[in-house]
């Protein structure tokens, strides 16, 4: 381990910023990704970097990491100008970036990963015991308590994230950039990461935290820089700022979120009746009903069973399912059967499960609609069927022939939705974290489309780990806890704190509908 490992406050005077990026300009063919961006981070602070998708955050961080060279501007580390020509140079200067997709080698052990490329050795022979000790120290430093001999593949996501952080720290990092760690973490795992962030900043290191989730930002951040259109538009002290002010900075104009509270609540018997969904050790759900036109939210911590429930309903996971649609029992033993029954799933990962990235927008949007006689001319048929849907959803692409992989996240998610609208006959829409990684505007847009579908009589089951999105968009919210549905809330009469309490503890407060009661 290097002697500079504990980068304490002594290495920088208090008035010298740990990191200052000034007047950063980065031009790509056709776009100005950074247009005079500024970022000043103090020693020992958690600095949040906010902005809608495309605001220039990623570009700025890639410049900081040394992956991109800026066209103009300067970077000062502890007051010293630095030129970062490569990611190696960035690491050497003490800048560690932990990307959303963790760059660990899954089949190697924690110790192997941590010291990949600089393992202690005699010539070509690795000194395994010393490597294990170094790794153990690094894991302990981030508060991990897992064995360093475990293959990374076998670790829970939170421990993988800690491993990635620990690896960043072995490289003597003064500035640690964390790109949306919560995108892959559940609520409780996030706590662990937050603790590590706090201990890092207590050692005088600086953390740059990128997230779309306001509650996290308010909790972990000391200050925030908000970016818009490649510029830094505001620097806020988070102790004296509200989330609404930050959102206003991000979007630059007030945008209306559709609130369920204005809507009449659907009445009548449920269209989708989930009598029971059981899978030993995973979930045990009973008595959830969704009416036509109703949006029912599924809240819960990571691992509470939201995804498992939706997958089970869609015939994609082995489980004992007793479900009725419009009074008729469904046999859901495969996704194909579920689709035939009128169910549609917007899966958790749009890139891996939702889209065919190598095919065009139109072909993606129509792939569900082709299974009909005479089974001919799918491309022409698909184009004809999908065109009005894509227009209606406002998918922004240069043409229907554009590869779907090249669209922005929000537009990609709309194409996943378009897939089901083009097919037609959807009666139940299952949404699993549909807004992950989307910016504020794209989120509002997506929920508007979901609401529009509900208004046409579709029963919607919406799983999200962002409670505020559920309270804003769901008619009712079921809380899942450790695989069981514990309570149902009406977001018009219950405040978010109460629901959040149940999400974390699993206890049913008074006023909530317990399972079994008529909904």
């Amino acid at each position, binding site marked *: 381990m290097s002697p500079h490992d504990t980068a304490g406050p002594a290495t920088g005077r208090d008035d010298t910023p740990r990191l200052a990026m000034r007047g950063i300009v980065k031009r*790509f*063919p*056709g*776009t100005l*990704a950074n247009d005079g961006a500024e970022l000043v981070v103090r020693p020992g602070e958690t600095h949040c970097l906010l902005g809608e998708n*495309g605001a220039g955050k990623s570009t700025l961080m890639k410049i900081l990491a040394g992956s991109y060279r800026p066209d103009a501007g300067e970077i000062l580390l502890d007051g010293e100008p630095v030129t970062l020509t490569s990611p190696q140079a960035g690491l050497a200067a003490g800048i560690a970036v932990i990307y959303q997709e963790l760059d660990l080698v899954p089949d190697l052990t924690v110790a192997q990963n941590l010291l990949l490329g600089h393992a202690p050795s005699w010539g070509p022979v690795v000194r395994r015991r010393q490597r294990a000790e170094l790794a153990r120290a690094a894991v302990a430093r981030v508060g991990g308590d897992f064995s360093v001999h475990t293959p990374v593949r076998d670790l829970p996501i939170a421990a993988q994230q800690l491993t990635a952080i620990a690896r960043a720290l072995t490289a003597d990092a003064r500035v640690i950039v964390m790109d949306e760690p919560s995108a892959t973490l559940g609520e409780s795992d996030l706590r662990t990461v937050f603790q590590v962030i706090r201990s890092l900043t207590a050692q005088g290191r600086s953390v740059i935290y990128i997230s779309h989730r306001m509650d996290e930002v308010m909790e972990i951040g000391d200050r925030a820089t908000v970016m818009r259109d490649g510029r830094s538009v505001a620097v806020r002290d988070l102790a004296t700022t509200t989330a609404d002010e930050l959102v206003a900075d991000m979007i630059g104009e007030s945008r209306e979120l559709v609130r369920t509270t204005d809507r009449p609540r659907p009445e009548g018997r449920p269209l989708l009746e989930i009598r029971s969904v059981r899978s030993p050790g995973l979930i045990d759900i009973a008595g959830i009903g969704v009416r036509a036109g109703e949006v029912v939210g599924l809240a819960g911590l990571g691992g509470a069973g939201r995804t498992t429930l939706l997958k089970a309903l*869609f015939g*994609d996971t082995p489980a004992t399912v007793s479900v009725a649609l419009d009074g008729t029992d469904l046999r859901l033993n495969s*996704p*194909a059967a*579920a*689709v*035939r029954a009128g169910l549609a*799933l917007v*899966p958790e990962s749009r890139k*891996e*499960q*939702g*889209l*065919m*990235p*190598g*095919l065009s927008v139109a*072909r993606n949007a129509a*792939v*569900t609609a*082709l*299974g*009909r006689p005479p*089974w*001919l*001319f*799918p*491309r022409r048929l*698909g*184009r*004809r069927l999908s*065109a009005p849907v*894509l*227009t209606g959803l*406002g*998918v*922004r*692409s*240069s*043409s229907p*022939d*554009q*590869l779907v992989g*090249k*669209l*922005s996240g929000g537009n990609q998610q709309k194409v996943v939705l378009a*897939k089901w609208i083009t097919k037609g006959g959807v009666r139940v829409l299952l949404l699993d974290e549909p807004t992950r990684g989307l910016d504020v505007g794209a989120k509002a847009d997506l929920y508007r489309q979901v609401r529009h579908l509900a208004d046409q009589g579709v029963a919607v089951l919406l799983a999200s780990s962002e409670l505020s999105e559920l309270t804003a968009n769901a008619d009712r919210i079921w809380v899942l806890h450790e695989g069981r549905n514990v309570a149902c809330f009406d977001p018009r009469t219950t405040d978010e704190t109460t629901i959040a309490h149940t999400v974390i503890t699993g206890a049913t407060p008074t006023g909530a509908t317990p399972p079994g009661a008529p909904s």
Partner: protein
Amino acid sequence: MSTSTTVAEPKPAPGGRSPRTSSSRRRGADLVVRFNLVLVFLALCVVASLLAPEFLTTRNLSNLLQQSALTGIVAVGMTLVILTAGIDLSVGSVAAFGGMTVALLIDKDINFLLAIAVSLAAGALFGAVMGGLSAYLSLPAFMTTLAGLTGIRGLTYLLTDGEPAGGDIPHAFQLLGGGFIGYVPIVGLIFVAVAVAAGLLLRGTTFGEYIYAVGSNKEAARLSGLPVRGVITAVFAISGCLSALAGVLLTSRLTIGQPTAFSGLELDAIAAVVLGGTNLFGGRGGVMGTFVAVLLLSVLRNLCNLMGLGSFFQMVVTGLILVVALVLNMLIEKRGSRA
């Protein structure tokens, strides 16, 4: 990296035809990618005719078509398999088995049309079993078809204890593999017909679109309710059937069934498919590329023959051409996707 053209507002297009600058550029790039191979092919033909005056004789050209047809038919089936991100290593063994069964059945005085049908069905069945194992049990197709490569070859030898089969083969059956219409070999016509049919299947039927969807993202296709396992089983069945067809045609030309025939065929077929621009990881490519690539490789071999270069030299040149074409393809495609 970001593309400047992605955020163009959707224009109201009543006729469905709006000005698409980026898309037409993209199409242009696609065409260049496609024509790249055709251009190389034509250039090679010009070089060939300059170096060897015999090249452009009808006799030589019809020979060339006859020689490339069998590999070509198998490569068309292989294209479908690779488009679903699969691979079929068993084609050579299935072809040999098809050739042997047809010879044996005809020897037993069974009508040759029926014999052909049985042969093709056996090939399709082998393909369906290997593909089905891979699709329904999530085994890698590489392994199931590798097992097929060995097992079916062994089965072929067992049919006659390794001896060639047949001998008394009806004239009509011989025409199929060895006959000509004018100067055009009938096998060449069959190759063209198979390629055209596969092209129509890919572009003009829902099944074809499913092949692309499965190859591009199997998981997304499954979660869209597509019959993924059926599609995979079917393409392997088609590949097996076309392999058996190649075997039948060879038996027809040689008038005997050779159990040792077609060894190493899988590599020739895969080479042609990949040279033809089909992505080994599925989802992108097509039959036309394979068609041109098959001809290109044949012309190359033919040219080496005409110039009296040994087969060792031929192998080196073929390898080099493959590498150069793949690098070129990749560069052009990269350029195209950036535009």
